[in-house]
């Protein structure tokens, strides 16, 4: 009897995953613990091992699908049971769209045996009975129409595009005569869906008067010079995160500059010692420490807004996300409990996480739970940038290149090692004065790192 492979809880607080790539085909024989599918959650891709040995008779979800945890994603039959019938339509189809209740088993089983509901016969023993329910309609198959004609009015090209984008044509509002769905309608719908944060119902997504996303149209004559790629995987997660950040925070910027001359000197001095300890010392650990000190002084920067409960969550722990550019896209691994770690420890951990990120080997717990984030633009060379908040954090600090610049000090022009700092903060939680003072505090600590030593806890 085929067993269902369920999408497991990949990490705490993760409720869904995107099926990135099937690693086996229907009909393939899989060994226990053989990776069968790549699943992405919160920017991390993991390979799911098969919970048992057998023949993968049916994939229940398609690549690109985003499915809640505990959703059956495949059926695996015992060896010798090849070609067993697919379970009755109701069971598989009904399970997929809703969030399944967490299983009772404490050790998070990946699968559960069927409970006799699904009649699965060995196909070579007896003839199939006449009649019976039709097989399940896959998600992208046309459903019964919802209008009085019993069939959605749509031009054939729109139907095809909808299928390609995995959209039910019934959902797409048509702009043609009598509500006919046109190609542009499908495209616009797909874009609005991609832009909305996952899980938000269509109706509740945007307040009245909220304009729909701009429909993209190829300038005529340039059709052959464009290439299209589906918005999938990490890019889609990033897009969703960014839209959520852009739409649901009130991002405000404050800028200041730091005289890093002493900090540069300190690092030069400590570098050989750090190297002796096997650590390549950058400025980042010092900045981490200064940020945590400043966060302790201005706790409102270390908060999140729980919109559902209408409460501001003040965090007494200091987990710093650090933006890392990788080949696949931006990820933000998190260094936990920065306040309890030494500069050396932080340097080592930052390097390890960055390497893991670039190798695509971050675990789900590596990218969750940040309370504040830092993005280091200096390493690439931009003069100045306006970072976007890593939601649900309240703020993000942009760190830039240290450069020799002329500054006026005690009435004279001197060359100092200067760095711009840009702080993006959510004005719902943080006011401008607090943000400016927070930034000043970081500067105060970093301009004379000795103070950092004195005040660091």
């Amino acid at each position, binding site marked *: 009897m085929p067993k269902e492979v369920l999408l497991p809880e990949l990490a705490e607080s993760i409720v869904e995953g995107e099926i990135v790539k099937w690693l086996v085909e229907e009909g393939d024989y899989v060994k226990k613990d053989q990776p069968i599918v790549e699943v992405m959650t919160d920017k991390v891709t993991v390979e799911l091992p098969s919970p048992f040995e057998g023949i993968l008779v049916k994939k229940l979800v398609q690549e690109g699908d985003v499915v809640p945890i505990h959703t059956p994603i495949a059926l695996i039959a015992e060896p010798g049971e090849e070609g067993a019938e*697919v379970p009755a339509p109701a069971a598989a189809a009904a399970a997929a769209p809703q969030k399944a209740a967490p299983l009772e088993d404490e050790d998070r089983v990946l699968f559960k045996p069927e409970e006799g509901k699904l009649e699965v016969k060995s196909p070579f023993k007896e003839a199939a009975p006449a009649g019976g329910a039709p097989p399940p309609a896959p998600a992208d198959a046309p459903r019964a129409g919802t209008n*009085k*004609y019993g069939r959605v009015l749509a031009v054939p090209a729109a139907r095809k595009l909808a299928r390609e984008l995995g959209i039910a044509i019934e959902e797409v509002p048509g702009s043609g005569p009598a509500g006919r769905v046109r190609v542009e309608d499908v495209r616009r719908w797909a874009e609005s869906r991609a832009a909305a944060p996952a899980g938000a119902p269509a109706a509740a997504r945007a307040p009245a008067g909220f304009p729909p996303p701009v429909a993209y149209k190829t300038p005529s004559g340039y059709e052959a010079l464009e290439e299209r790629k589906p918005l999938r995987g990490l890019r889609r997660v990033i897009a969703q995160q960014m839209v959520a950040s852009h739409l649901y925070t009130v991002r405000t910027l404050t800028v200041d500059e730091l005289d890093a001359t002493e900090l540069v000197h300190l690092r030069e001095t400590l570098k050989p010692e750090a190297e002796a300890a096997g650590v390549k010392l950058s400025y980042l650990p010092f900045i981490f420490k200064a940020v945590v000190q400043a966060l302790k002084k201005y706790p409102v920067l270390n908060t999140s807004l729980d919109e559902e409960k209408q409460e501001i969550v003040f965090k007494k722990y200091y987990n710093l996300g650090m933006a890392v550019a990788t080949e696949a896209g931006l990820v933000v691994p998190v260094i936990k409990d920065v306040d309890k770690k030494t500069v050396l420890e932080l340097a080592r951990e930052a390097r390890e996480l960055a390497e893991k990120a670039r190798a695509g080997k971050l675990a789900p717990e590596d990218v969750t739970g940040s309370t504040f984030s830092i993005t280091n633009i200096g390493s690439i060379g931009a003069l100045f940038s306006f970072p976007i908040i890593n939601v649900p954090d309240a703020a993000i600090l942009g760190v830039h290149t240290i450069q020799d610049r002329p500054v006026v000090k005690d009435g004279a022009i001197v060359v100092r090692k200067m760095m711009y700092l840009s702080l993006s903060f959510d004005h719902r939680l943080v006011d401008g004065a607090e943000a400016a003072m927070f930034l000043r505090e970081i500067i105060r600590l970093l301009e004379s790192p000795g103070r950092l030593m004195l005040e660091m806890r």
Partner: protein
Amino acid sequence: MKEYDLIVIGTGPGGYHAAIRAAQLGLKTLAVEKGEVGGVCLNVGCIPTKALLHAAKVKKLAKSAAEFGLSFQEEGLDLTKLAAWRDQVTKKLTGGVEFLFKGNGVELVRGEAKILSPREIEVGGERYRAKHLVLATGSRPIELPGFSFDEERVLSSTGALKIERGIPERLLVLGAGAIGLEFATIYRALGSEVVVVELMDQILPGADPEAANVLARSLKRAGVEIKTQTKAEGFEASEKGLEVRLSGPKGEATLVVDRILVAVGRRPNSEGLVGLGLTLDEKGFVVTDERMQTSVPGVFAIGDLRGAPLLAHKAMKEGIVAAEVAAGKPSAFDQQIPSVVYTDPEYASVGLTEAEAREKGIAVQVGKFPYAANGRALTRQEKDGFVKVVADAESKVVLGVQIVGPEASELIAEAALAVEMGALADDLELTIHPHPTLSESLMEAAANVNKAAIHILNK
């Protein structure tokens, strides 16, 4: 053992479309055929009947030309030559399919496929494995109790094609569907006296009754007798011929004929597939979803095997869908299927008839235009028939089109596009149709929905 991505069993319209499309998409494809490539359609269905209907049409035209002073000598009909020409057309097309197989890299193996598992078949002692199996085994004529096919006295459509065996003086056709009426037209033109018996109360059950009426009148004028609401109970052979017992609204009667054609429907060739554990419906058709996937993963069913309507163009599209789904593409069958009866005049329909729309509770506005008011039809001596556009009264969305008349089979394609595009009657009306053509009738019928047809009085 040879390994493939996809094996198609049966190379009728559905099967060869599946095979070619699969190969186009880069799947290693094997097609299995136990009879002739092209299946029923190319060999004993669509194509040879249309060849014979063409002969019937030319014969009629030669006769009707006398109206404008052009007369032909009755040279007689060489049945052997007609049969040879019919076979030549068929051969060209089946050869074409084989050429396309070769050109696309589809392997063809001849013989009966024995299905060992959803992934493995045997043909002529050789085993073949594939990731996907497409069943396209088609259908065959249904026998009526008391009228078993012997293809001598009681013919199936396949036997009826063999006109080279002689044209009976008197032919009884059981069933006034597309197949029965097309053969009634052929045999009548070739000289038989033809009686058509139908159990339902109109010919072409399900078709627009008004259109069916026009067709019935034309058939009667050509000399075909039609008995609706009549049942054939059985027959005995005597020296007079085949004495067929009929029972109808006026009681029982005996009809003496020389041959009987049974055309009461077709049944799926699904018997050889039972071991797979496929879900079948009560008529034995294989149940699939819109992606042609059966209840057994990796196994697809298409064409007549999958059920009504048993039409080649439906099978073709289904074949394409099966191949695309097997290749991992998001494909599904969700089109409207036009239907055509190649009688004289032809009948064609797409979408809903007026009656079907009303049954669904839709308020409809019907536009109609008669061929008698179409200049081109008159120059062709073909004034029988009309075009009917069924539109939603409120939105004017074209829900269906029925045509009875010359070239209905060709004109329906434009109507199919209109229905598929969700066009309004206005869209058809506002599209300029060349003059003088039969196609103007569709434009005018659409205009009549808005009471704006020019060549008739809009009522």
